[in-house]
């Protein structure tokens, strides 16, 4: 490697993308950090405090406590996905993605930079929502390592998914189709508000094809110590998805799909 193209120059490039992403998140905090906190507060008030009282127990615990991990996970998923789609597609739309495309940075550094930015946003918003949840349901932590690792792996996986969406998107409508018609239904049906064991046999099997079920349940295990699915299966599925999506993203960037003519 020449002096201008070295591990150090790539590291500086990665840091720069991350700084730029974090600066963007902070600059538009009213769009990135506050809305999810307000939405989740409403969820806790309506589904937890008001309706939850009538529901009673779910999975052997008060309903309010049961929905906390799922709602944090819902926040992490939507924010990591949304951060990459809006930031990457915005850069593509405004053509300033060319600043990166003409630079010496290899595709994997560009990808890591965007994914890291999304993970930072997802974690910050996730922690804010957690703080709100603690106010309603108290703070619980069964296994800190499972909790943190599932949080990071899930945000990485959905950030990668968002990146693919951003690469293929041609107009702003294209970055809202997947979150609205795919991500949201999958998340809501992924065991955020109910235990999948409540479903009839056939639908229980169907729900196990939804990867979000594994993420929510693994995270619920980390916080509350209960899960509808074995932990190792959840890790295998999340990691598997992450690896496949990373490969797809890298291939798209290397071939310049939607970016280079």
């Amino acid at each position: 490697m020449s002096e201008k193209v070295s591990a150090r120059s790539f590291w500086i490039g990665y840091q720069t993308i991350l700084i730029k992403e974090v600066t963007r998140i902070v600059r538009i905090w009213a769009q990135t950090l506050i809305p999810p906190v307000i939405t989740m507060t409403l969820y806790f008030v309506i589904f937890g405090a008001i309706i939850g009282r009538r529901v009673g127990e779910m999975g052997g615990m008060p309903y309010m406590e049961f929905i906390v991990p799922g709602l944090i996970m819902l926040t992490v998923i939507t924010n990591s996905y949304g951060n990459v789609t809006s930031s990457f597609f915005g850069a593509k739309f405004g053509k300033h993605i060319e600043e990166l495309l003409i630079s010496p940075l290899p595709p994997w550094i560009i990808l890591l930079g965007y994914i890291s930015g999304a993970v930072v946003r997802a974690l910050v918003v996730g922690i804010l929502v957690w703080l709100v949840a603690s106010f309603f349901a108290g703070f619980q932590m069964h296994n800190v390592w499972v909790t943190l690792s599932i949080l990071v792996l899930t945000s990485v996986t959905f950030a990668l998914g968002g990146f693919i969406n951003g690469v293929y998107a041609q107009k702003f409508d294209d970055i809202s189709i997947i979150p609205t018609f795919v991500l949201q239904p999958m998340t809501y049906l992924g065991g955020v508000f109910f235990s999948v064991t409540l479903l009839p046999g056939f639908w229980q099997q169907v729900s196990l094809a939804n990867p979000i079920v594994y993420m929510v349940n693994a995270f619920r295990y980390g916080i509350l110590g209960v899960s509808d699915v074995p932990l190792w299966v959840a890790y295998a599925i999340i990691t598997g998805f992450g690896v496949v999506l990373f490969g797809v993203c890298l291939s798209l960037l290397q071939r310049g799909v939607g970016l280079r003519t």
Partner: protein
Amino acid sequence: MLALEVNHLKKTYKNGVVALKGIDLQVTEGDFFALLGPNGAGKSTLIGIISSLVNASEGETKVFGTSVQKDRSKAMAEIGLVPQEVNFNQFEKPFDIVVNQGGYYGVPRAIARERAEYYLKKLELWDKAFSMSRTLSGGMKRRLLIARAMVHEPRLLILDEPTAGVDIEIRRSIWRFIEEINQAGTTVILTTHYLEEAENLCRNIAIIDHGEIVENTTIKALLSKLDVETFVLDLRQAIETLPVIEGIELVLRDPTTIEASIPKSKSLNRLFRALEEAGIEVSSMRNKVNRLEELFVRLVHADSENVKAGAV
């Protein structure tokens, strides 16, 4: 050493448009090189391939000996690109735009900050360094593109119409800046529609048309091909008839303006003697069009005719 080497470069877009038909081009280190051509000639495609924004269909591009197609990162580290269109984030501050660009090229943040200040000051943008870049005027945005391209101090600077749409004062300040960095050793490739810009700044030139290089030589050698020059003469008094001068073609545009087409072999003294004898007094004189422009039009026109003939 060659700063740029383009070997048999071809580009056919997915819609079937053939933008480049096998171009060969060499630019030596330290050169100030003009790349001219009419709209749609293939200039931007060529620059796109050199800067890796466009994938070549065939052929190879080398920057200081490194193949863009085989070792993109190393080749890109040597290039600074000033694109035709404004392509920075208009919601960021000029200072941040320049510093971040330095980071993408591995320039440590502290050094990138120093350089950003230096180039923004040099390009008279420092007082706007911390304003939102969308509030900059068109000329300021152009200069910001140049500052951004210089932050990693590239050995090859490519400017794609850097002075398009800017006023003459800013254009001149941009010229001075580019000349300065060229004198400091940076190789410069310039595309422009202002042909006097190319004539005044550049040493070598390539003219591209219909995806082919139709001329590749020194500016001096190219201008020497101009065998007839046309001058516009402004007269002190109105006249009705023109004198006849052998070998010089005179046209009366209006009662106080003559256009004189003079072959290089004929002396200008002869024209003035004949006008004096006819009692015609000339108050001022200028080239009808820029000399390079005259040649450019001829070359491009000739190429268009050839293409048409070929098509028949």
